């Protein structure tokens, strides 16, 4: 069903832009899975969506609305870049520490928002959105100040040596080892909710805080934990992009993954494996529409239009099904 809606959105976008639907769809399909490059591209686009999407799931399941995935993603990238600048690490040790620093950075930022909600009653919806701006400003400052590359010519951090970047399976394709991180995270979050005590508490607090309190669960503590875990996943996404794709941070580093991941998480039914599936769908859509924008006359705007239409279409369908009461999602 979802796939049909996405396809319909794509067709509407192509119609609006005046692109021949057959050539348009074939360009999208080729870019998404036409050859090994397309498949790799789809997977690479899906990786940050999976990680941030999982982060959104964890927080929302605890009843805290983390809209700050973007900021936590940026802070993750910043933390990794900062570590790379501060310590002369190389090889696998470097990769692991970049990812750890990224997760820690994101966790701290999200925990702050969680703390404000629990102890100062400031809704996380608001603080996380505002912290996005703080993070973007911090990025802006860092790449023109302490983290700027040594020649100080561009607003970019120094480029990681390729030995410190996540390995690629084939030097010509874009797929990097970060894809394993994403899959492992999906399995871990699934297991967290299904088997762990803490995961159970998170669900309990989110679904029925009164029952949780009646059972002497420290709901505040659980919420803060959920936010920290959520932020860690979003930060990790930034770290994976840094160490796997860009190798440096700069103005274009925040690509909106943190925002796109919210509809992805909803589309995935706030379930770990659902997020994986939704991320793959959107990864393919992104990779495909990038190819379309590059090799047809429509320009880059079409990427955003297709994305936006698909998200709206899918959400509307959800809503409609729920209102109709026919089973629900």
């Amino acid at each position, binding site marked *: 069903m979802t796939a049909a809606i996405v396809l319909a959105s794509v067709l509407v976008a192509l119609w609006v832009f005046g692109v021949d639907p057959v050539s348009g769809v074939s360009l999208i399909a080729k870019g998404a899975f036409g050859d090994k490059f397309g498949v790799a591209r789809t997977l690479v686009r899906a990786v940050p969506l999976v990680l941030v999407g999982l982060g959104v799931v964890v927080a929302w399941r605890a009843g805290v609305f983390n809209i700050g995935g973007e900021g936590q993603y940026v802070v993750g990238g910043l933390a990794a870049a900062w570590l790379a600048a501060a310590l002369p690490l190389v090889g696998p040790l470097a990769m692991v520490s970049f990812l750890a620093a990224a997760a820690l950075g994101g966790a701290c930022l999200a925990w702050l928002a969680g703390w404000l909600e629990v102890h100062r009653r400031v809704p996380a919806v608001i603080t996380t959105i505002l912290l996005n701006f703080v993070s973007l400003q911090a990025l802006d400052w860092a790449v023109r100040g302490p983290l700027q590359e040594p020649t100080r010519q561009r607003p970019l951090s120094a480029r990681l040596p390729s030995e410190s970047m996540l390995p690629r399976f084939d*030097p010509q394709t874009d797929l990097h080892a970060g894809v394993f991180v994403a899959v492992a995270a999906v399995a871990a979050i699934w297991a967290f909710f299904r088997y762990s005590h803490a995961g159970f508490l998170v669900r309990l607090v989110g679904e029925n805080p009164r029952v949780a309190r009646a059972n002497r669960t420290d709901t505040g503590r659980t919420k803060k934990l959920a936010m920290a875990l959520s932020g860690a996943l979003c930060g990790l996404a930034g770290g994976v992009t840094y160490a796997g794709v860009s190798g440096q941070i700069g103005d274009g580093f925040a690509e909106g993954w943190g925002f796109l991941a919210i509809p992805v998480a909803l589309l995935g039914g706030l379930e770990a494996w659902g997020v994986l599936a939704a991320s793959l769908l959107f990864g393919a859509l992104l990779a495909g529409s990038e190819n379309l924008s590059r090799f047809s*006359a429509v320009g880059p705007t079409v990427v955003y239009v297709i994305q936006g239409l698909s998200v709206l279409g899918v959400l509307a369908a959800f809503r409609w099904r729920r209102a109709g009461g026919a089973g629900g999602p």
Partner: protein
Amino acid sequence: MRTMKTVALAGAALAFLAWGCEPSAPEARVAQGDLQRSFRVALLTPGPVSDAGWNAMAFRGLQAIQKDLGATVNNQETSETKIRDAMRSYAQEGYDLVFGHGFEYNEPAVEVAKDFPKTVFVSSSGGKTAPNAGAFRFALEEGFYVAGYVSGMMTKTGKVAMIGGPDVPSIRSTFKAFRAGAERAKPGVQVIETFTGKDADVAAAKQATLAAIGQGADFVVHQANAAAQGVFDACKEKGVAAFGANLDQNDNASGVVLGSAVINAEPAFLGLAKSVKEGTYQGGIEVYGMKQGAIDFVWNPNLASKVPAMVQEMVERLKGDITSGKLSVPMDQF
């Protein structure tokens, strides 16, 4: 709970919209050639190719390649962290030649070239090379030197100004040449130098120009690319003269452009593409200056009457000296 959820969704939707609404200038694009196996050339530019300056000039080069060599061509605006990704995308599509129009493309080019030995990556300026990657260097300094000389000859206040976008070595180098030219004509001339730090901020360029004019400058040269209009508008407002850069901007509607330091990029782009098509490209850095016909300083015919004949004559002599190699213009390596 339910309200919270609605608020959260609304917030998410707003944030998503805000991010999606990033302004993007309409982009000129070349039509698709056939998708058969043909010679394929891509151009990456730091700004929109509709800027009537640095980026437009490269786009003309690309169009010449399409026309004269029958190549399938494609262009994309890309910068900073996205450069490598764009280069890799074109190489993956089997493109034979990828131009990056700026020195910032040089390092990524050399690096990506390692993974894609069948594609040639060339950047406009930059110092690193590989067997399938290199750069060409437009000696725009020569044109700026002449412009500086003119400003030195003609300034009444003894103050001239240079307005740059981002503070990068390529722009610094042309400013250095402008300064040298001005000082050659009028030792002790005061040269005001301002960088707005941004590439397409018309308002910032205008403000910076107004400030420089406020300090007494009566000739303004720019390296503001897409924001050049801001410089010209400020000059018009205050009635001072400006110079165009990169492309012939003499016909700018403001009517203040006395002359332009131009790059004629087509021969360079075409020559390079030809050598790649014939398989003779070997990597390296090639310099294109006045001698190669790639750089010139052209007067605005409508304003020529305001320029003393003596100045015009001196400029011709200066250009002759640069072309013959008798005079070498200061130029930074980067």
